[in-house]
């Protein structure tokens, strides 16, 4: 199974690369025109020369057969050469590395937070039937499900940043702190990450609660729960090792998809908070038609989702003894 998964992942990465290859190949002519114009003015070379150079850089209109172009393109990617950003005039790879940590920080905290909180509340709601908690879970999940994540972010921004001024409006840390491993910096980072994390968490926790509640409800109908009660086990033990351990499995399989969704939506949320992660730059790149940057960040997002997928699979096989990796 693991080998199959890895093969599919490799295949997916190639599919994503091919997609960007086709996109770059079909770049509208006026984009190259404006890129050349930029290059000509910044480097002080004639427009014609710049135009040809840009075309050469992306292999647009080259005479080589398509497969040679594709091969060259893939080879470049593996060498880490993703070209220069049109807008920032620096290698794409540098932007990727500067943006990635911020996105990872916010996403990892949000996913863990929302999953854990959602799982606990969902299980409790299923365990204690017909209580206020159950109606709360349903209502909360419906409302957050009806609210697109970027609107949640906008609401948080308006309330906490604009009006209450409790949190900053933009950025990842204060300009007056020195980046590095010092308390001031860490506090500043967390302070700035707070609203984005909240936006993701508030948005996602409802889904987890609902999923966990449904899963726990169905587990509660299983014979082994009744059997455990008949065996006179303590409630706490039944709730944790009999109900919880089993109920967490189906939501867990959705974890990878959720990570994909969050990474995909990061363009919106990070833009709302002007938080300099992958999504923020991606949004900018698309809006300004910065093709090299767009392509690099898109590949990075895809690889990120695939790695998250594989990690989730590995973790799952540790949770469920019925699944064996390698079989």
């Amino acid at each position, binding site marked *: *199974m693991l*080998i199959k998964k890895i093969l599919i992942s490799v295949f997916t990465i190639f599919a994503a690369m091919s997609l960007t290859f086709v996109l770059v190949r079909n770049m509208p002519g006026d984009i190259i025109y404006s890129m050349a114009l930029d290059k000509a003015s910044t480097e002080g070379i004639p427009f014609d020369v710049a135009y040809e150079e840009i075309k050469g850089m992306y292999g647009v209109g080259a005479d080589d057969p398509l497969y040679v172009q594709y091969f060259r393109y893939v080879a470049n990617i593996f060498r880490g050469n993703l070209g220069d950003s049109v807008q920032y005039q620096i290698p794409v790879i540098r932007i990727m590395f500067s943006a990635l940590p911020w996105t990872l920080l916010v996403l990892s905290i949000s996913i863990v937070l929302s999953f854990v909180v959602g799982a606990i509340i969902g299980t409790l709601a299923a365990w204690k039937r017909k209580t206020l908690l159950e109606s709360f879970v349903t209502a909360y999940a419906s409302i957050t499900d009806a609210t697109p994540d970027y609107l949640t972010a906008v609401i948080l921004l308006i309330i906490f940043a604009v009006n209450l001024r409790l949190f900053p409006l933009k950025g990842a840390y204060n300009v007056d702190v020195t980046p590095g491993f010092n308390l001031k910096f860490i506090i500043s980072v967390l302070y700035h990450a707070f609203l984005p994390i909240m936006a993701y968490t508030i948005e996602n926790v409802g889904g987890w609660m609902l999923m966990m509640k449904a899963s726990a409800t169905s587990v509660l109908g299983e014979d082994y729960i009744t059997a455990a009660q008949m065996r006179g086990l303590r409630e706490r033990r039944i709730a944790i090792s009999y109900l919880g351990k089993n109920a967490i499995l189906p939501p867990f399989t959705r974890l990878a998809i959720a990570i994909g969704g969050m990474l995909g939506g990061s363009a919106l949320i990070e833009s709302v908070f002007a938080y300099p992660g992958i999504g923020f730059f991606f949004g900018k790149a698309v809006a300004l038609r910065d093709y090299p940057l767009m392509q690099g960040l898109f590949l990075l997002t895809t690889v990120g989702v695939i790695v998250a997928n594989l990690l989730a699979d590995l973790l799952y096989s540790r949770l469920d003894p019925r699944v064996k990796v*390698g*079989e």
Partner: protein
Amino acid sequence: MTPPVLQLKEVSMVYVKKAFLQKICVEAVTKVSLELRDNEILALVGETGCGKSTLGRIALGLLRPTSGKVLHLGTDIWDGNSRKSRFIGQIVHQDSYAALNPVRTVYQTLRAPLVRYGTKHKDVDEEIRKLLEFVGVTPPDYFLNKYPYHLSGGMRQRIVFARSIIPKPKFIVADEPISMIDPSLRLSILDLMMRLNEEFGTAFLYITHDLASARYLARRGRIAVMYLGEIVEMGNLQEVFEKAKHPYFQALLSVAPIPDPRAARKIRPLKLKNVELPKAGELPSGCRFHTRCPYARKICTEEPPRLREVEKDHWVACHLIEEVPKWTLALER
């Protein structure tokens, strides 16, 4: 002499399971030869996983055997790559709920095949009423617009039987038709099968793990006992039940529940060497029962026994027929 409605000649079914870097062959059915004569009831008994359901599906032409021939009324139904003839048999499944389309009413369920088999539109309503009356779903008008989930298991199974006789099949394969029905109603379904057999001359292949019901239904018919994909004993039902010869069938009979306290307490189960069935894909060599058989000898581990006719219409596949103690079930209450 007309050919039998169904004839299986050396039929085998091998499934290939692809696991990681290896292929596992699972033999579900091995060289089974069987005959279902016109108007006959044949009970096919065996435990879970012995291949009896697979054999039933092969008999109908729903599955193509990996080797061997399936003949319906004397003609080979598999020719070249596809099934040649139309189905002359019908199937009745164990789960009557799954056998009926959940979104269609009783009327809709029966109407389609009636129209397909030539009933005129104006006669359809009348025909459906007649059918329902016949299978004991009365009063018919009450049931016409019911959905399957409105009905009890017994009623659903009757409707399944009603549907299955519409094309006037030569034979019906009934795969555990009563195992999901309340005990007090089981005989009524068996009685219905007997009535269909008598009035329409439909032959039945009754697949079951319940020996007592096989004995009830096929009292004038025959029985075939399967173990791990092979037929180990076969013949006239009365004869086979009275003079069971294969140790496996003896063991089954010795543990078959009897609804009579004194008789039930008298019979001691035949002690087997091993209670667990061998794993699928790891069939024992020689006689497949030798791992559990209390009488097994060296020859049993080496050579597979052939099915031999030991008495008139009584076939047994065992090397040690003469040595296995005689079995009698002549127990009075």
